[in-house]
């Protein structure tokens, strides 16, 4: 499997350059204040979480250029300034504080990692500016921070959708659940288990693994010995891909349902058509280059420009940037007014989905189910599951 490494390397160098450029902000931001609008973005650009962070970085770069090609925001050129959170909560908080102090921007983009966003949440309150974040963990919304708007489906929605697929579509009587041992994995797995039991179906397996684990055969063999009829894996990218590979190696031929973290190009590129043959995937939205609409156009341009396929984790940041443009042009740069604009968003159509803000500031309320065309690694759309 030959893969081009160039774009990744360039991306990393760009990230390094962005980080280096940050050092000069104090002198440049004021000078450019009249005709340039600087907006901060704190996402993981290096380290183990950068696989997803790269998508946010790319999609926001694309949004910046597309918005500027359409006249910028209220006549000002948009300049998105990136700061690296790495895999550290402390670094994420410091990056947010520094960008907020340096830029004094009316809006910021935050990470997709719940623990980083939880750590940053008190600083968002102090800054009193609206932010868009994409972590799925319920813990953030439980803080009821009026400034934080979630642009991805929360983990509870994903758990409900997996349960619907498991019980309604696949008619499972003996499901088994494997999940990554953290707030995301446990949250989704608990939801699935609870909904299964409520429907009178007792899972025959409920096992976890650590982020750095490389061999999940003990858990999978346990499922096999208990005759599980569907295996659910709640995972991230490469760990999820490893599980899909090991399921095949262990001769488990029952359907496998994977959470959205596994359904990103970076993970799917690691798998063969044979390994994907029994896989159903939850995905935030179906972003495919074959689509003949704004979504397909975004996906094709993204792939051409960055050399990697677009995914819905990144595309929701693209949408949020366009929402910001509309919000600032309608409500102005006052943070309170901008926040109120985001709070009343209804049926706003982006390339990823249609967004409506609910009482918990969640803006995304559906996920898509996909599987793979036989003998290929091409994704096929099954249906959208809207969850209230």
């Amino acid at each position: 499997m030959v893969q081009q490494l160039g774009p990744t390397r360039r991306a990393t160098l760009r990230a390094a350059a962005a980080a280096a450029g940050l050092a000069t902000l104090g002198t440049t931001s004021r000078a450019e204040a009249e005709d340039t609008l600087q907006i901060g973005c704190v996402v993981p650009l290096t380290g183990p979480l950068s696989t997803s962070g790269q998508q946010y970085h790319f999609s926001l770069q694309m949004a910046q250029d597309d918005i500027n090609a359409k006249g910028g925001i209220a006549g000002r050129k948009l300049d998105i300034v990136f700061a690296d959170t790495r895999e550290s909560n402390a670094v994420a908080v410091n990056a947010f504080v520094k960008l907020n102090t340096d830029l004094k921007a009316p809006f910021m983009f935050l990470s997709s990692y719940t623990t980083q966003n939880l750590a940053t949440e008190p600083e968002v309150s102090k800054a009193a500016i609206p932010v868009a974040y994409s972590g799925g963990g319920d813990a953030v919304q439980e803080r009821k921070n009026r400034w934080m708007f979630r642009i991805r489906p929360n983990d509870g929605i994903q758990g409900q959708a997996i349960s619907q697929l498991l019980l309604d579509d696949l008619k499972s009587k003996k499901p088994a659940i494997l999940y990554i041992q953290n707030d995301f994995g446990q949250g989704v797995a608990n939801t699935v288990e609870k909904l299964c039991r409520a429907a009178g179906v007792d899972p025959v397996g409920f096992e976890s693994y650590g982020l750095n684990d490389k061999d999940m055969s003990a858990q999978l063999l346990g499922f096999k010995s208990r005759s599980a009829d569907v295996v659910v894996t709640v995972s991230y990218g490469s760990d999820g891909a490893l599980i899909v590979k090991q399921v095949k190696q262990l001769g488990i031929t029952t359907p496998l349902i994977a959470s959205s973290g596994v359904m990103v190009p970076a993970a799917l590129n690691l798998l063969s058509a044979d390994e994907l043959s029994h896989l159903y995937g939850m995905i935030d939205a179906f972003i495919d280059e074959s689509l003949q609409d704004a979504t397909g156009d975004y996906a094709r341009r993204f792939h051409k420009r960055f050399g990697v396929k677009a995914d819905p984790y990144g595309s929701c940041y693209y949408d949020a940037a366009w929402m910001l443009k509309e919000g600032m042009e309608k409500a102005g740069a006052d943070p309170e007014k901008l926040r109120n604009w985001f709070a009343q968003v209804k049926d706003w159509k982006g390339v990823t989905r249609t967004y409506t803000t609910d009482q918990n500031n969640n803006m995304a309320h559906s996920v898509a189910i996909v599987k793979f065309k036989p003998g290929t690694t091409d994704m096929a759309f099954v249906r959208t599951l809207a969850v209230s």
Partner: protein
Amino acid sequence: MGHVLQLAVNGLALGSVYGLVALGFILVSEATGVVNFATGQFVMVGCFFGVTTVMQVGLPIWPGYGAALALMLAFGLAFYALVYRPLQDASTVSVIIGTVGAGIVLQNLALLVWGSLPLRPVSPFGDAQLSLGGATLAMQSVFTIAVTFLLIGAVHTLLYHAPLGAKMRAVAQDREAARLMAIPVNAVLMATWLIAAVLTGVAGLLLGPLWFADVSMGDPIALKAFAAAIIGGFGSVAGALLGGVAVGLAEIFGASYVTSTYKDALVFLLMILFLLLRPQGIFGERISQRG
């Protein structure tokens, strides 16, 4: 029974991986008296050299592996010259900290060179599997077990039955005395780093097709391998294998019969028990017994 056999086979395969990486720890420790905390990054670099030679340059797999190991020799030489040599007369703690720092630098350099996305190196055996009395195992895992046993034997022979091995152990025990005995200390130390680089490079090449190539892959593997080296005995080559298998079996059976959530805790509990009750490990000798 078939289930237990499958678990045992998987534990053996996993343990042999840890044992192979533990060998890298033990070889350096035996010759230099320090623990190389960049061992995990050595494994990662070996894996990515294979990615470069086979996947990017497009060499056939076996010549590609050969080229990757040649690159590991150059890497070992560079590590010796740039990291170990400047620190070799400093205190043990300084050298250890030097290896920790070098490991961090290596990981960041790898990120720049190969990027953050994981890759799937090809296996010489494709998806082939071996059936063994109701248990199945990927041929890549079988190959890894076989290579581990082979290398354990080779390193044992080198250290305990070859002149170079005797010199390496002499240098580790008392560098000044070795020098007075006309042992070319610097050459022996350099040879140690070259061999360690090749050994860990082999581990990286074997691991890539099993667990994917990822610039962050080194530390988690090295941590378990370190536990394996402590359990087996830091001064023992055979102990690396036994310790590795003990860790692999504890992990697999622990996850299956005790708890999958805390299986790593079981492994490190085992390591702590050894540190408390038998600090020399299963096969290791007390420092006071050396010489």
